[in-house]
């Protein structure tokens, strides 16, 4: 059981580090969506189903959509 949590946290930290490394902004947004999704799973493992539902609906769907719409209206590549 502890190995599942360890694996998930390592993947989450790797996704957060790669969100800062990517030069293409779309890739960085998808990495931040992965961070939100794994945080939602960790909320469920910490016995908090309300918060897991809220984070999955808001953090992984609506925030990513708003970022993609904003990137479409400005530049796509970081200079």
């Amino acid at each position, binding site marked *: 059981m502890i190995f599942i949590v360890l694996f998930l946290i390592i993947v989450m930290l790797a996704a957060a580090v790669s969100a800062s490394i990517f030069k293409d902004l779309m890739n960085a947004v998808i990495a931040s969506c992965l961070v939100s999704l794994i945080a939602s799973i960790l909320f469920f493992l910490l016995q908090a189903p*309300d918060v897991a*539902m809220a984070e999955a*609906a808001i953090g992984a*769907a609506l925030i990513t959509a708003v970022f993609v719409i904003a990137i479409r209206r400005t530049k796509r590549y970081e200079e």
Partner: protein
Amino acid sequence: MRRIISIIILAIVALGIALCVINIPFGASKTKVGNYYIEKGREQTGAANIVTSVVVNYRGFDTLGEVTVLFVAAIGVSTVLATLKKKTKKEVEPASLVLSTGCRFLFPLILFFGAYIFIYGHLSPGGGFQGGAVIASAFLLTYLGCRGKRISEKRSKITESLSGLVFIVVGLIGLAVGGHYFLYNFLPKGVLFSLFSAGIIPLIYIAIGFKVGSEIAGIIDKLVEES
């Protein structure tokens, strides 16, 4: 240069925080307020979901503050993007038949699912904010699937304002009728685990569900607008 200085400063701060966090035991009971809400929550509010009774009943004023913050953010997005120079409208190619039919078929199902989440908020995990987010993602689906269709802005603003008004009116009626504080639970508590129970909690969560859903749909509509 900037990178090295910031890494050094973050390392020092991380060392200080690690020395503090080591003393927080993981998995031990820390406060007594939680125990009080769990023991007395069922008979004082009548809701089976303790987190719902904390958010709406014991800490209802904080929820009013949060609804205000969301409202101010929606007004801010409308104001900042209002006077932008619009570029010329590009020719949008219409979506294929499978995509547009599928989106039109899924839209009322997702609305129904979101409404189920906030109506049963006091009996099972869920509530107003989660249901509102699901409703907003149903509107996002129509922007992605059936291209060229827009939400009528006037209707979403009317829904949002009326829902906020319902929240405040229910609180003021509680102040006038029963006890001596805002958001007093004045409706009968009912039988536990039935739909019409827990006083004013279902009313407030239905109002919050409509408000959050129409607000975020309005924000997305304002950001997408290209013509």
